[in-house]
């Protein structure tokens, strides 16, 4: 079984923006005293919606709001060239979702690190008043735009990178050299250091070192240093990939094992070349089967570890070998595994024990453990129970404790994961399942070790192998690093409050990432412990020590220096909506397992209300009391907030595992993907042929309400994970024939294999889907949603602007927000 012919390989995503705040034309009221945007786009304006609530009970009259005038994202098509600093000032970065090309002129590429606020409040009080969060989203391996310069590598030789001797911050463009260059002042802690003799250089008339422009570390926001011995506790580890495959009865019978084997077999050709790339493989049911692939044995040797309470590795060597030495053996083995276990009647699956045993085999090097699991782990250490069913039966006793099912059942897997992390083993779990597998418990392992959960539910041997292969291939071929440690430093006055993401934290200051890749984002929140000086700049420096897949130890240093301000309205003006909203999403995801859902929804709504209320109270004119006034930069906050409340993670109905999966995804999601995760993109497919070839490949997204879905239309709605193809009930059979190859979809399976047929429409549909897959770095799982079918209802529930049983319509929500603000104001 292979990937379908039309399975694209996905590379870096394109940079087609589609969510750009739009200026409202109707009913807006200019805000006095507002400065033009620093980057000069958009009118200095504050949208306001005319709305006069009647005093008293007449609440439900939102008809005065013109639904066509309320803020919605608009697509931006032109590419922006962005210089990170202009005229010695930090430039305000373009929206994360827009297409831009960065020139690193001192501050880092915003893809790598961006802040919720582009001006930093001088005091904690201002920040609190604004009700906005102060946080960085760090995505250290974010894919660059193809036209951007690569990050420069700096080798300081034996002496290692120059660092502040007090706070150990790395040399960066904002360190100030004084005294003819003999000393430099750390921009983070303010300490005056002696310049190392080897690094001395005279200053020019402008007070900069004469060599500043030749030295990347003095002129670029992001550089990489070659790590010296002091950064090495051992030789850099080899790139180890260990595949662990469930072969229990269910996995075999659903075709999951075969899919996994085929995916691995195809993907191993994409492993990094060279002698330092090593592989190993094991399978498991109620026992763990290792394979020694040593070359001089004609056949692999199968070694079974039957004790799943107290596991061990059966060999210390020969289980993990350089790929060059065992490729043939491995391929043969992968081919024969599905047959070998064809008649397996063992229903139990010792997931935890198998991971532990594989870990023991990898312990000496560390590396990536890729687990393919198909059923609820039912045996051995770390086995789980069908909590979901128990939860359901308890629902009558009250919903109070429902969120407990979203917490790991016990500490076993967490303890295991901490040990994995300590030995630099990163776990990715591919769940190809037909039933509840307790993702809340399972996801602890990948999220602690820098991996992630991939979820294929319900697994289809027909449509999912292609996605499985593409996910695996991207997993092992994307830019990544091993055995990493990351620390974020900031200027005095601020301190790091917390880190959020998939990592393990042993000391308060650093986070350990057994693996880090281009898809992972770490959120860092800050709090004030002192005042910052107005007109000074506040610096952030992220240092990531890691080993490349080729075994070089490096330090990636990412610098961002932002102006400080005491002016509240500046905070609002320079707020970064998408980053802020990503913060809200992650906070909500964090809260879900520990708080009842209704409370989480309230918290999310309140965050939105408090921000808008603060703006209303402190920045908007008093006269506009009957109007809902939104800060320009944050005008989409209510829409996104509404979308979040209705998202899979926060909606009341839905499967437990779906919610857990959503939580696990959200914790490490990038700014770029966080928005579509809750606020999907919908495009029409049926009329693709009517567009001219000059238009951008992907048509303009449609507003997410049901008025936009015609019965005669076919629509694709995608959130970066799944693609829902909605087919109305009056679609021309000819169109169906063109896209799906059949004239009627009655009885068609919900999981869709999109094939390319020999017609223009089919070609365009495939092009669009492939382009989206490329953008999202994810092979969308396509699902067919038919009108009048439960799948169609589910599709409708994703149209966030609609009024739904579980939530308000967009207009109603705006009314609600406005009312809340008003009641707070009085």
């Amino acid at each position, binding site marked *: 079984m292979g990937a379908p012919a039309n399975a694209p390989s996905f590379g870096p995503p394109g940079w087609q923006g589609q969510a750009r705040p739009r200026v409202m034309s109707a009913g807006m009221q200019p805000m006095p005293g507002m400065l033009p945007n620093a980057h000069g786009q958009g009118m200095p304006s504050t949208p306001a919606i005319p709305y006069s609530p009647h005093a008293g009970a007449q609440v439900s009259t939102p008809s005065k709001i013109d639904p066509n005038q309320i803020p919605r994202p608009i697509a931006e098509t032109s590419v922006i060239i962005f210089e990170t600093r202009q005229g010695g000032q930090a430039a305000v970065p373009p929206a994360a979702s827009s297409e831009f090309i960065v020139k690193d002129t001192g501050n880092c590429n915003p893809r790598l690190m961006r802040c919720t606020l582009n001006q930093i409040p001088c005091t904690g009080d201002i920040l609190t008043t604004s009700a906005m969060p102060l946080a960085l989203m760090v995505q250290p391996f974010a894919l660059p735009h193809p036209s951007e310069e690569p990050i420069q590598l700096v080798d300081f030789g034996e002496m290692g990178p120059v660092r502040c001797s007090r706070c150990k911050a790395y040399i960066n463009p904002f360190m100030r050299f004084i005294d003819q260059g003999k000393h430099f002042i750390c921009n983070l802690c303010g300490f005056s250091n002696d310049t190392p003799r080897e690094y001395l250089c005279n200053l020019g008339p402008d007070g900069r070192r004469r060599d500043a422009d030749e030295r990347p570390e003095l002129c670029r926001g992001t550089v990489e240093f070659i790590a010296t011995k002091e950064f090495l506790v051992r030789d850099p580890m080899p790139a180890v990939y260990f595949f662990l495959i469930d072969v229990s*009865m269910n996995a075999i019978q659903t075709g999951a094992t075969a899919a996994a084997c085929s995916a691995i077999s195809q993907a191993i050709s994409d492993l990094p070349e060279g002698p330092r790339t090593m592989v190993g493989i094991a399978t498991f049911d*109620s*026992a763990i*089967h*290792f*394979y020694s692939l040593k070359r001089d*044995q004609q*056949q*692999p*040797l*199968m*070694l*079974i*570890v*039957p*004790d*799943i309470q*107290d596991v*061990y590795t*059966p*060999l*210390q*060597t*020969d289980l993990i070998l350089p790929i060059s030495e065992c490729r043939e053996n491995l391929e043969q*083995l992968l081919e*024969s595994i599905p*047959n*070998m276990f064809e008649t*397996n*009647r*063992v*229903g139990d699956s010792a997931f935890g024990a198998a991971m532990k045993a594989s870990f023991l085999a990898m312990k000496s090097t560390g590396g990536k453990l890729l687990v393919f699991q198909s059923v609820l782990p039912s045996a051995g250490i770390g086995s789980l129970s069908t909590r979901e069913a128990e939860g359901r039966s308890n629902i009558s006793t009250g919903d109070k404790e429902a969120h407990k099912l979203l917490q790991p059942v016990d500490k076993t897997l967490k303890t295991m994961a901490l040990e994995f992390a300590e030995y630099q083993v990163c776990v990715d779990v591919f769940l190809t399942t037909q039933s509840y597998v307790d993702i809340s418990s399972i996801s602890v392992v990948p999220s602690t070790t820098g991996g992630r959960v991939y979820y294929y539910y319900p697994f289809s041997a027909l449509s999912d192998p292609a996605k499985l292969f593409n996910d695996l291939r991207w997993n092992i071929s994307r830019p990544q690093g091993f055995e990493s440690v990351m620390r974020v430093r900031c200027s005095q006055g601020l301190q790091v409050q917390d880190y959020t993401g998939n990592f393990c934290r042993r000391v308060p200051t650093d986070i350990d990432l057994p693996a880090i890749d281009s898809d992972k984002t770490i959120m860092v929140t800050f709090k004030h412990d002192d005042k910052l000086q107005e007109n000074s700049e506040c610096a952030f420096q992220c240092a990531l020590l890691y080993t490349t897949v080729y075994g070089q130890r490096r330090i990636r240093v990412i610098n961002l220096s932002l102006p400080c301000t005491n002016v509240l309205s500046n905070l609002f003006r320079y707020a970064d909506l998408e980053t802020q909203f990503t913060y809200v999403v992650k906070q909500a995801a964090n809260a879900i397992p520990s708080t009842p859902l209704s409370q989480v929804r309230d918290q999310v709504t309140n965050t939105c209300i408090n921000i808008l209320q603060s703006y209303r109270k402190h920045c908007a004119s008093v006269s506009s009391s009957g109007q809902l006034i939104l800060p320009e930069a944050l005008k989409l906050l209510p829409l996104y907030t509404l979308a979040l409340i209705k998202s899979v993670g926060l909606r009341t109905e839905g499967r437990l595992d779906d919610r857990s999966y959503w939580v696990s995804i959200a914790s490490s999601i990038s700014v770029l993907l966080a928005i579509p995760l809750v606020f999907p993109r919908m495009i029409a497919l049926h009329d693709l042929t009517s567009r001219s070839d000059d238009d951008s490949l992907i048509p303009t997204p449609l507003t997410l309400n049901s008025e936009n879905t015609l019965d005669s239309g076919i629509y694709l709605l995608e959130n970066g994970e799944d693609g829902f193809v909605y087919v109305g009930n009056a679609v021309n059979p000819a169109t169906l024939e063109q896209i799906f190859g059949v004239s009627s979809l009655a009885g068609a399976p919900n999981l869709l294999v999109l094939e390319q047929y020999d017609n223009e429409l089919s070609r365009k549909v495939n092009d669009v889907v492939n382009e989206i897959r490329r953008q999202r770095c994810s092979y969308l799982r396509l699902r067919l949603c038919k009108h009048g079918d439960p799948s169609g209802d589910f599709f409708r529930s994703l149209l966030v602007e609609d009024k739904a049983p579980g939530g308000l319509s967009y207009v109603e929500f705006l009314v609600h927000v406005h009312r809340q603000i008003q009641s707070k104001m009085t």
Partner: protein
Amino acid sequence: MAEFLELEAQDGIRMPWNVIPGTKQDAANCVVPVSAIYTPLKPNPVIPVLPYGPLRCRMCRSILNPFCVVDYVAKIWVCPFCFQRNHFPQHYSSISESNLPAELFPQYTTVEFMSTTETGPVVPPVFLFVVDTCMIEEEIGYLKSALAQAIELLPDQSLVGFITFGTYVQVHELGFGLLPKSYVFKGMKEVTKDQILEQMCFFAGKTKPTTGVIAGSRDGLSAESIARFLLPASDCEFVLNSIIEELQKDPWPVSADQRASRCTGTALSVAASLLGVCVPGSGARIMAFIGGPSTEGPGSIVSKALSEPIRSHKDLDKGSAPLYNKAVKFYEEISKQLVHQGHVLDLFACALDQVGVAEMKVAVERTGGIVVLAESFGHSVFKESLQRIFQSSDNDLGLSFNGIFEINCSKDVKIQGIIGPCTSLEKKSPLSSDTVVGQGSTSAWKMCGLDRKTSICLVFDIAKKDGPDAINQPTSNQFYFQFLTYYQHHEGQMRLRATTISRRWVAGSGGVQDLIDGFDQEAAAAVMARLVSFKMEAEADFDPIRWLDRALISLCSKFGDYQKETPSSFSLSPRLSLFPQFMFNLRRSQFVQVFNNSPDETAYFRMMLNREDVTNAVVMIQPSLISYSFQSGPEPVLLDVTAIAADRILLLDSYFTIVIFHGITIAQWRKAGYQDHEGHEAFAQLLQAPQEEADSIIKERFPVPRLVVCDQYGSQARFLLAKLNPSVTYNSDNPAPPGGDVIFTDDVSFQVFMDHLQRLAVQ
């Protein structure tokens, strides 16, 4: 002497007292206990195999035999043991004086019964190989080729399993065709039978029965699940060969100052449990090939640090072998399990240092296993012994399985126990004596493994008290013994061998001469050797020399001919005359002088002593010495240093070692190569003769003895000198004759020993 050998040839029994001291007191005075060394499966073509089941006494369950009194008219037989009158059943109705069933023929005191209807189908024997891999490559190479040869010789229908071990235990799944596949168990941890059942997927796809003993196909394990691990040899030859071919040194790293981590105990426990799961109650043997001491998990005998030496006899005596008792206890548990399952543990221990035979002894001996001790897997002692086990020839071992040995005797005789390869079934009966020797407190024993040579020593107790009623039964001055051995024949069927014998008893002082006439001094020596070995192991602070000396003195004063206080008048009847020499040599033997040997060697020697017949035991106690020279043909000579001469070749057979010793002149000629020159054929023949004799001994002995060919004054000559009576030592008054030899020892010579004996006996 000859009459004892005849009796042995017929029934496989030798008794020190063929006329039995008839009362408890008499028996006590006789010093050497009333006992018998019985070889249950002694081959004898005359023994009939009866195609029907035996007829049993309805009272004492003894079997119809030639000593039964039969009333042909009434069709009634009287049991000689309990005097119960039994009716013959219908199918014996045609019985008459002229129409006897075979078991009543007077000459058929030993018969075999083989009733297929009762014994069920033929079951193939099972061989489970357990192979150590913690060895240097060279040794592994030797072992590989030996195993490959053995596999070829396996009977086609026999089932085979394969386990290897080092740091971990690997159970090879021979029935898995696609890849070499094995289950790996941690060496540190003991594995129970339940774990084997569960972890090796014996219940795959089925629910585990909630209660009851689960094992074997009888209890619902599918034949397929068993056939994964135990396959007919003919079906898995290829897989087995490739596993053996790919055998490699245990891959876990060992630092230079450490011993390899070898989990012998766990491996054996896994093997035992696997057999217990798959073939409980049917003949199976674990054949363990071990190349060093166990250092990992239960049953380990020494720590990994090389700085700690392996325990010696001295350590055991002082109690400073911390792991010893724990290991023995562990192997006791294994032996219990194996006995319960009816399985055998064979041990092939090949290493320069000890491997823990002393600890494993209990499991080997109680299951009737074979033990072979050699220095290397390349040594002929190991290689040829292994082959011998599977080779079918006139001298094959006739390995049999799963035996149960039962005994019936006249009511005045009780059984104290058995010293030999068996386990008490704890079936207490009026027959069992309160005094226990060896495996006792029972009248039935399990003999999981037995072969044609396995000989057990039964020690009896005469219960009859002195007194008037002792003399009041002149009609019955016979004791009857019936030995029943129910076993799985090496061809697979179950058989029952019944031996019934009768011995006269005498009571009171009048019987001394009768006793002397019935005294079998070789059997007595063998029994004494087993007894003293047993007591040395079982009794704390036991002084074997003192015990033997006292026994010999009492025996001599009771049966010797002398005038009181006149040592020079002392003489012994020919029936007893060799006995003092046997005891002299027993005192000097490896069984008593343990400090010359390692505990492993001692355990090995004793295990062999406890399973061999009288003739071989005597060779172990007192080696035979044959002289070859131009002057005369081969002739036995005294086991004395004076036997050495420059122009003689000596052939010493001490059972474990055979030494061909060339006198110095012969040695020089041989070195010069005269035997190859024309005209010296006689010399070539002289050289050849002892070699041929040695070969013929080696051919029928198991385990194959070690052959040492040496020259006078050579270093290997110590193998001979150690066994000789030191009549001429370095400080003797009379110097050695020219060409003779002296022994550097302070041990007393036989002459001195005899002088003391005579002096003490006549007191």
